[in-house]
């Protein structure tokens, strides 16, 4: 098991870029293959964007925590926030549209997290949303 690396963000959409830089740097430290790094960045981008956009009352300051660690075969990412409860596993994304006319804009972020993370665990513990994503390291 590797050391646990963590990052604290403010609830500001501009902070998403910091997550990407942080992951780029850690990908070297944790020896992540490009496919795993891409899946991780995509899921963190979508999860953090959702949290800073929807979890909090407007004009309130909050922190969002991200922790990353790995073992031989699996990379783990945990995202924690103290916003309103949101379980991405219970959210039903819109059905895939058949044509452009009926295509809805939105709900794609959750679909991406489900498609790119190998396992998703959500837990509400007290005031906190805790989302644990895991990725096979190929």
């Amino acid at each position: 098991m590797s050391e646990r690396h963590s990052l604290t963000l403010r609830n500001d959409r501009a902070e998403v870029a910091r997550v990407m830089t942080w992951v780029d740097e850690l990908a070297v430290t944790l020896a992540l293959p490009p496919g795993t790094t891409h899946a991780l960045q995509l899921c963190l981008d979508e999860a953090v964007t959702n949290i800073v956009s929807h979890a909090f009352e407007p004009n309130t300051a909050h922190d969002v925590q991200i922790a990353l660690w790995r073992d031989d075969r699996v990379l783990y990412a945990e995202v924690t926030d103290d916003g309103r409860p949101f379980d991405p596993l219970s959210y039903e994304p819109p059905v895939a549209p058949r044509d452009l006319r009926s295509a809805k804009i939105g709900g794609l972020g959750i679909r991406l997290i489900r498609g790119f993370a190998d396992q998703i665990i959500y837990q509400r513990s007290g005031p906190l949303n805790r989302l644990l994503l895991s990725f096979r390291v190929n």
Partner: protein
Amino acid sequence: MAVEPVVPGVVKVILDGRLDITGASVIDLQFSAIAGSHKGIVVDLANVSFLASIGIRTLLLGAKSVQRRGGTFVLLNPVAEVERVLEVTGVTDLMPIYRDSEAAVAAASAHT
């Protein structure tokens, strides 16, 4: 973002870098203006390294706008990671992906 006129009414839009919240916000306005004023659009994705849902929103809004006017919106040469994002979100069922620039241009020119 670069825009190359191909034939009258048809353009190739060459995107690059990351289409995440930052990248999408840079191109949104211009992309939507181009989509609103052409009947054929080829979006060259070869130099796009990362596509998040916010970037898909940009593509979908553009494609819907072109389609409403009876035109054709196609994608060209996404890298493997970007193509997988398009598949997982169902976008590959909504807009065709081409590997060959001439074929993409021919498809986008079909209804002009």
